[in-house]
């Protein structure tokens, strides 16, 4: 089998985080990686460091063949140039712009030359691709959680990213929306083939969206590998508790409404 050139995100950073120090090293290829850990373990800081919104004390971040950050070489590309798509927990849709303008914003950032009309048309094609073209003129506050997630993803992809970073993608959704969104995201991530890091504390997200998992505790990566392997041998009590949550719907404390597809 000839190995095709797969985009790869390599992260190795070190940063002081108050009570402890973040020392994490990750490699993400075609298989999405779920990043889990207790609150305050440094997940968000790691994400921000990869994005370029926080500067680690030491480290190296490489995306495919581009060095985004390297203390040894004194390289620190600004966030705007890293081409990393960021989907925050609340989706981060601009409340002062309509849905189509939100997507057009991403296009305007990357291609200054296109005219507003061209951008609008292109934005519409992105919306249509995710079956939300009919929501184009709506304001984000008028959308449901699942619809907002689609708009956020459409906007993120419109900026031609080379990697995806999702922060708690289903945390702010109600239970039914979570199911719908998980399916949608799983589909999209699979078809995009971009390096994807997914921060979550929901084991169902992990199972639906990722094939590999990294456990972060007190700033250290205590386990990293295939979900199946880590579940079989959880290194810490947190990992054990998180991964031992039942996958059969309707039997765990989380599920309160009806029957879910998984």
């Amino acid at each position, binding site marked *: 089998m000839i190995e095709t050139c797969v985009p790869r995100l390599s992260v190795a950073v070190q940063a002081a985080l108050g009570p402890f120090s973040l020392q994490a090293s990750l490699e993400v290829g075609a298989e999405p990686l779920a990043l889990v850990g207790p609150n305050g373990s440094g997940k968000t800081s790691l994400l*921000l460091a990869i994005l370029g919104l926080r500067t680690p004390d030491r480290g190296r971040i490489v995306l495919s063949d581009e060095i985004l950050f390297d203390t040894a070489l004194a390289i620190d590309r*600004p966030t705007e140039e890293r081409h990393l*798509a*960021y989907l*925050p927990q609340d989706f*981060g849709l601009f409340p*002062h712009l309509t849905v189509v303008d939100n997507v057009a*914003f*991403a296009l305007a950032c990357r291609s200054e030359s296109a005219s507003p009309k061209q951008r609008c048309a292109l934005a519409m094609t992105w919306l249509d691709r995710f079956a939300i073209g009919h929501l184009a003129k709506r304001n984000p*506050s008028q959308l449901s959680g699942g619809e907002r997630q689609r708009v956020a993803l459409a906007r993120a992809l419109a900026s031609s990213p080379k990697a995806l970073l999702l922060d708690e993608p289903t945390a702010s959704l109600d239970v039914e929306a979570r199911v719908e969104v998980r399916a949608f995201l799983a589909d999209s991530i699979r078809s995009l083939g971009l390096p994807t890091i997914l921060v979550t504390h929901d084991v169902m997200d992990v199972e639906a969206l990722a094939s590999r998992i990294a456990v972060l505790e007190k700033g250290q990566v205590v386990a990293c590998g295939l979900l199946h392997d880590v579940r079989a041998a959880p290194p810490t009590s947190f990992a054990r508790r998180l991964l031992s949550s039942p996958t059969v719907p309707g039997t765990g404390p989380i599920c309160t409404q009806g029957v879910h597809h998984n």
Partner: protein
Amino acid sequence: MKRAAGSRASSGRLYNAAMVGLGGVLLLFLVLPFVALVFDGGPEAIWRGLGCALTWPALRLSLATTLISVALVVLGGTPLAWWLARSRWRSARWLEILLQLPVVIPPAVGGIALLLAFGRRGLFGEALERLGWTPAFSVVAVVMAQVFVSAPFYLQAAVQAFGRLDPSLLAVARSLGASPPRLFLRVALPLARPWLIGGAAMSWARALGEFGATLMFAGNMTGKTQTLPLAIYTALELDIHTAQALSLLLVVFAFALLLFLRRFNRGAETTRRLATS
């Protein structure tokens, strides 16, 4: 059981009496001077007062200078507030406190400070004079005094407005590739706009009422540096009804301004609800 009900009733009455009494006294105290301002002397005296030679130059000057002052405050204050709100530099906090000083010091102190800095024999005044510029006791001094006392109001509102912005929104914008100008102009400004306008209105109100620093630094020359508040002060020496008429003019302006502020604050509430829902 009966005793408890009785004592509850009497404590309820005491509570009502105290609330109404205390609050009512303050309310009366605040309202009565305005009543006197409107009704003392009668409409004829007020009309005559409005026709005084001081009135229209002062009104023109006040309008023109305060508008320029607010424009300058917004132009310089918005970038400054943006930097202050996002700066990680520890001294930025001290700088914020320093910039609030003109609010708490007496305006006359501001006037003296301006004289000591920019007066003919001031710290920078001599250098300025060599460049041919002597701002003290001119219309420019009026604007300078107004900017000095009113800027902190806008700055505080703007820093709070920018600080209140959802950081994840800014983070997303940057990740999408928004350059610093685009981030500021297309994301931060539109989202902060209602609070910025409110701050500008407060700043304008302060500039309109500015007296102490103006008197010291710009002097009190009719038609040249005599703003509406200074005209009121001068009018007291001439005819109390002129002073009354001019005061009413200022009060009407201030009232209109407050109404405008409330309408915009309601707009701000709507935007906030949209942003957080």
